[in-house]
């Protein structure tokens, strides 16, 4: 398994901006202490830093695992991973509910499927929205909320509605 595949594997498990930040934090910890501390110790530190277990495991595996042990220099790996993580594009979503793991997986799957470049999500709860989402991406902004949907529907059906109520 080359660096690219390992990096892709790690990056594919990063769904949100928050996860990216903790991954980078974990990477920093691992990069700085890989030869000074044991795996167990590093594992504890990663947990302490809030790095999700699976990401932490992957990082450690990537740092000490077979692929790297044999042919891949760790420095390049850390560098490539960091670069890839930092290049991920952030899609900000304001939604009306607390996102579950399931929706985050669905969103990540959709993004990997529909959009070429790597995208992670920055999910925010907005109680003023009754349904749908507000999107911000690369300086662009759209609202796909119920309010907009209803307004559009009312506008397109205005004449009919006016006839009904008059």
């Amino acid at each position, binding site marked *: 398994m080359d660096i690219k595949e390992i990096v892709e594997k790690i990056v594919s498990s990063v769904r949100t901006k928050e996860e990216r930040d903790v991954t980078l934090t974990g990477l920093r910890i691992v990069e700085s202490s890989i030869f000074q501390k044991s795996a167990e110790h590093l594992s504890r530190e990663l947990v302490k830093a809030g790095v999700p277990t699976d990401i932490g495991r992957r990082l450690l595996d990537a740092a000490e695992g077979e692929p790297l042990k044999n042919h891949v220099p760790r420095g390049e790996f850390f560098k490539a991973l960091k670069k890839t993580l930092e290049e991920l594009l952030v899609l900000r*979503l304001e*939604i*009306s*509910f607390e996102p*579950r793991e*399931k*929706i985050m997986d*669905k*969103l990540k799957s*959709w993004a990997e499927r*529909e*959009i070429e*470049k790597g995208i992670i999500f920055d999910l925010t709860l907005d109680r003023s929205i*009754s*349904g*749908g*989402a507000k*999107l911000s*991406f*690369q300086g*662009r902004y*759209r609202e*796909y909320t*119920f*309010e907009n949907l*209803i*307004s559009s529907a*009312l506008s397109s059906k*205005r004449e009919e*509605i*006016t006839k009904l*109520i008059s």
Partner: protein
Amino acid sequence: MEVPGKYNSPTQFTPPFGNAMRFCRRVIAAVSLPQGIMPYGQRAGFISETTGFFLLGLVLGALATVLIILYRRGRTERFSIDMEDRFKDVREVADEIITSVHRESLRTMEGAQKQALEMLRTTALYRSEAEKKMERVLEEHSQRESERLSRASEEFLRSYHLSLEDAKKIYLASVKKMNDLMAEETRRGLSEFREELKKEIERYGLETEEEIKKVRGDAFRKIEEYTREKLKKVDESIYQVLALVSKEVLGKSLSMEEHEEVVLRALEEAKREGFFKF
């Protein structure tokens, strides 16, 4: 205070040698007849006081002369007897003189009285005649004057009536003329006023009509605008209500999966609209 020898009042003469003069006056009065009243209120006696004094003076003068003559004839012892005799003579003479003077004065007084009476009678006569004449003259004059006044007043009345008539005619003519002028003026004024009023009413009517049209137009316009505004607000309100209700209903009626599905649909829509184009 009486000053002897002076006129102390306009009617009173106080002669000198007061007491002697009073005695003389008494003497004169004694030999005078009662006084009468002359016309015009003068104090009248048959002789005047001056004449009385003159006569008295004459008597006394004669007496004095006799005495002097007797005294000069002889200043002898027998003067006293002579004198007595002479005084007796003188007395007799004086008595005679006094009697003659008395008689004379009586005659004078009678004459004066007669004269006075005559004068009185004449005066009375004259007065009576004068009075009669005066009365006649006055009567004639009064009659003439009353006739003259009567004529004058008749003339005056006639003239006055004529003047009055003339004045009345002139006045009536003036009044009539003035009335005619006023009537004409009033007629003209009324006619002009009527015309002006008519024009004014027409003008006012037109203006009012214009104004009413304008106001009506403004009112209609404002009503339309208001109606439009209100309808617009009503529409907006309805849509807002619909939106609110729909939002609330939709939001609460969807399940978690449906909400998640809506989010995914939103992403799909965004992709379709080119939201994720690089």
